[in-house]
């Protein structure tokens, strides 16, 4: 038994739902109790889908357990079939039904329905969401494309003269991190370089599409977590080779195109002309100098974490001070990559462990998931989300891929923007003694909000966002100082968490209300609750006033680190009272970074 509070991945049947919901013409009957229907809101609220996920839950109750839960399954399958008329059905169970062993897949097969029934057995007590998605996709493809497989020893037919090379794009799901936009970007890129798309699946594919996946020459694997198992099976069964580079970042997209050239037999050189991204120039532009050596901590699913590590180092000039992933199945490559840059990979799904590691590494920015965004907020760090698990703000209205040339532009913007805002804050800080820029003056882009930095209630526009809002939340929302802005995006999600006012409990851990979501990018440390004190202040250490004042002159986004380094230095040196000299001695000791 493991105590868990927040999880990176849901249960495996939610992964299977992501496949069913991504596709058209598939229906999933899930043997599960009523509470499991919460999963619908992931799709209708977080992803803002305009249809219910194609899932029928049996919603059996305790009183049914003694009786015939099997009959409930059959009835649910039958009526879902009659009502939704799918081209294929997935039938499976959630954790609870797994325990009562009704074998819903087997039951459904006995009904003699006129569509393929694909049974799914997902071990809920061992595996998680990505595994469930991967298995669901694999079993669907196997069931639907399998019947069209050539004989095992039949040679692969050559591509007819004059027909363009053809590929499948594999891995896009519902509720994926920017999958919708990535697929559009990569589809466009492939078409530009002369490759035809046979099927893109599971996102927007039908069962009939899956049946003709064998007609492609090769497979493009965008999300190995979802599609690796399927791609390997296709490779074995249809002799379709697959790409292994995930095209996130300029370098990776270049490598990806080389792979595509090789697999398609097209000329690699002209292809590269389509790699038209602003990232290289923006990164070389002199104003990007300040990005040099920024310390970043990277955590996410293996695919996105690996890609981010490469982009961070090669294309942004950052220093990667931490690298890890939460999905053990794909940890090997992450371990290898971490080792190459002299780090020990962090492979865990315990967010408290991640929080400790981030604190320890003292980065300036975190590239992570929604979980790390909250950790970063507590620690007063900048953060950009690069991976699932996702939240509503990870489905922006604008086109915003992570992959391909446009994806590289997006990476540059979204990673650099918080740092740029930090710089701006710093400049404002430098002018704070100028009467025009007094401490009470609010940066113009923060609108007319309370200049009060203590987070006092500015009873502002109020919390009428979609989330857990409320009058009570305004105390936090009044300020769009960095810390508040960060958490707020979350609160704008379909959230059931009552703002403090709702149950009337003024908790110290109050959620920022959505009003602050107006400024989600002003991610800066100072106003974050954790402030600059990243470690516990040691009782035997005392900051003298002069030193404390000097510390305040240091730009706030490195102040936490300076404080920490100074305290570490003082402790090591047996110094109990920190004065200005200690501060600068520590700086000299650790270097200015």
């Amino acid at each position, binding site marked *: *038994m*493991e*105590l*868990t*509070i*927040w*999880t990176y*991945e*849901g*249960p495996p*049947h*939610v992964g299977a739902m992501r496949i069913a919901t991504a596709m058209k013409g598939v229906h999933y009957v899930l043997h599960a109790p*009523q*509470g*499991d*229907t*919460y999963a*619908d*809101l*992931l799709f*209708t*609220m977080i992803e803002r889908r*305009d249809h*219910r996920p194609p899932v029928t839950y*049996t*919603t*059996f*109750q*305790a009183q049914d*357990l003694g009786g015939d839960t099997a009959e409930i399954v059959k009835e*649910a399958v039958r*009526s879902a079939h009659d*009502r939704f008329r799918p081209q294929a059905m997935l039938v499976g169970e959630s*954790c*609870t039904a797994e*325990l009562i062993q009704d074998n819903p897949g087997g039951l459904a097969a006995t009904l003699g329905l006129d569509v393929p029934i694909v049974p799914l057995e997902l071990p*809920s*007590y*061992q595996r*998680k969401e990505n595994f469930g998605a991967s298995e669901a996709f694999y079993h669907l493809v196997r069931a639907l494309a399998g019947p069209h497989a050539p004989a095992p020893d039949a040679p692969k037919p050559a591509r007819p003269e004059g027909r363009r090379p053809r590929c499948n794009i594999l891995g896009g799901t519902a509720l994926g991190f920017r999958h919708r936009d990535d697929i559009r970007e990569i589809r466009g890129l492939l078409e530009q370089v002369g490759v035809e798309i046979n099927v893109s699946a599971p996102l927007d594919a039908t069962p009939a599409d899956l049946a003709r996946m064998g007609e492609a020459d090769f497979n493009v694997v965008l999300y190995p977590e979802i599609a690796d198992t399927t791609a390997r099976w296709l490779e074995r069964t249809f002799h379709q080779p697959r790409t292994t580079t995930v095209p996130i970042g300029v370098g990776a997209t270049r490598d990806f195109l080389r792979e595509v050239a090789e697999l398609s037999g097209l000329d690699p050189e002209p292809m590269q002309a389509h790699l038209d991204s602003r990232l290289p120039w923006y990164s070389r532009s002199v104003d990007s100098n300040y990005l040099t050596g920024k310390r970043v901590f990277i955590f996410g699913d293996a695919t996105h974490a690996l890609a981010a590590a490469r982009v961070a180092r090669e294309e942004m000039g950052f220093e990667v001070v931490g690298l890890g992933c939460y999905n053990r199945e794909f940890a090997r490559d992450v371990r290898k990559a971490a080792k190459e840059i002299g780090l020990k990979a962090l492979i865990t799904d315990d967010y*408290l462990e991640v929080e400790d590691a981030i604190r320890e590494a003292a980065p300036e920015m975190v590239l992570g998931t929604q979980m790390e965004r*909250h*950790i970063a907020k*507590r620690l007063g760090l900048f953060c950009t989300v690069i991976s699932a698990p996702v939240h509503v703000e990870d489905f922006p209205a604008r086109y915003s891929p992570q992959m391909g040339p446009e994806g590289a532009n997006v990476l540059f913007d979204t990673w650099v923007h918080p740092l740029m805002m930090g710089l701006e804050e710093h400049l404002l800080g430098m002018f704070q003694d100028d009467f025009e820029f007094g401490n009470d003056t609010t940066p113009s882009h923060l609108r007319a909000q309370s200049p009060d930095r203590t987070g006092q209630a500015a009873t502002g526009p109020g919390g*009428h966002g979609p989330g857990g809002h*409320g009058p009570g939340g305004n105390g936090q929302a009044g300020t769009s100082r960095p810390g508040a802005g960060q958490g707020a995006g*979350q*609160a704008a999600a379909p*959230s*059931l*968490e*009552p703002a403090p*006012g*709702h*149950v*009337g*409990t003024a908790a110290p*851990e109050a*959620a*920022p209300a959505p009003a602050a979501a107006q400024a989600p990018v002003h991610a800066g440390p100072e106003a974050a609750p954790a402030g600059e004190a990243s470690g516990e202040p040691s009782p035997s250490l005392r900051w003298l006033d002069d030193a404390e004042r000097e510390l305040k002159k240091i730009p706030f986004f490195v102040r936490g680190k300076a404080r920490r380094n100074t305290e570490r230095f003082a402790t090591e040196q047996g110094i109990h009272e920190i004065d200005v000299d200690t501060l600068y001695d520590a700086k000299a000791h650790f270097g200015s970074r």
Partner: protein
Amino acid sequence: MSAPTSGAVSDRAAVSGCAAPPVQVSGNGATGDARSLPVLKERGQREVFCGLTGIIWLHRKMQDAFFLIVGSRTCAHLMQSAAGVMIFAEPRFGTAIIEEKDLAGMADANDELDKVVARLLDRRPDIRTLFLVGSCPSEVIKLDLGVAARRLDRESATGVRVLAYSGSGIETTFTEGEDTCLVSMVPEMPVDRGQATDDDASAPATGPGGRGDSSSADEPAAPPSSLLVLGTLADVVEDQMRRIFADLGVGPVHFLPPRNSAELPPVGPATRLLLAQPWVNEAAHALEKRGARRISAPFPLGVEGTTEWIVAAAREWGVDRDAVLAATEGPRRRGTQALERYREQLEGRTIFLFPDSQIEIPLARFLHREMGMIPLEVGTPFLHRAHMEPELALLPDTIRLSEGQDVDRQLDRCMEDQPDLVVCGLGLANPLEAAGLTTKWAIELVFTPLQGYEQAGDLAELLARPLVRSALLEV
């Protein structure tokens, strides 16, 4: 998506064959014999949360309590998705996730649970009450959390009370999780000796065999010694009610759940019980078993509901309606004034309520009687006739009252009805919006302080907002 105009409103009502009076402003005019309202009972796919979700407001109400779900990754994921906000590093709830190895043998699961609890209490010395919350998996494998709670309660010499209740989806629907939680607290409540004279009836409630079976059917009516208000109310609402009751000389007033889980209110034969939320049915029965007498009243939604609720309680203290009306003059005036503002938007509009929290019936009553709305279907996950009687009596006999759910069929009826406003869960809202309807998330009705006079306007505003918005948008 068409923005409904008032013209369209009456058309729709006509098309749907709704025979409700077009505008029922006030008074008892068109309410039929509601007690005999037919109920459409349905059994099919339900689209509701399980009782675990109650933890989201319970843990904020009782800030010295921790809720440990013994369940699966699904339960943890539900809490995360439902709670939405992850910024609290360590909230006062968590899930002990059952793993493959725990399924191997019962002894293991209990040992594992003890270990998790020991670690938890070690890390959270501030916790005064630990709730072990049962889930579907823990119940299917028959892991007896009641036994575990007693064991852990004894073993934790730290003064932490350990209680167990079920929040599982096979036993509880959404707000029923609060009900089962409250039931678990009832045996722990001290005896209210108050002015009670009948010694036999105030037998110790805890102690051997004393867990909640001390009622006697017809003891003489003791004068009330305290008022126990049952069901989570926002602190701000509690305080308002407290002031009003104090003005009327009604009291002492206690609330269950209390703000501090270590300070449980007393209960005994001279306790009067007033239900603040429509979902506390089993807890009410448990308290009645301990002697408390339930006061029958509508729920305190809207000005009328709040007044009737207070009047019913005050009567027990010998305070008559006129005295209540006099004492509440100010708040009632403010409440009525606040409602007036939203009347224009709501009056004559039709509404369809999917079953969610059990607040649907009192809500429909308020919207119909005080805002002039026309309820078409009122769904409830569960109908407790006795507790709902004062509400049902105020509903028009034209409504379709449904209990339980078959979500696909209910959606068909909803599309057929084409109501001006739908109150439904988060899973259904956007799909219905996409189909051209206007929706309000039911969940907000549970998390927002809406009871009492000062909040009546907020309640109306909550329902009016989607209509205002859809009329506003030109895209």
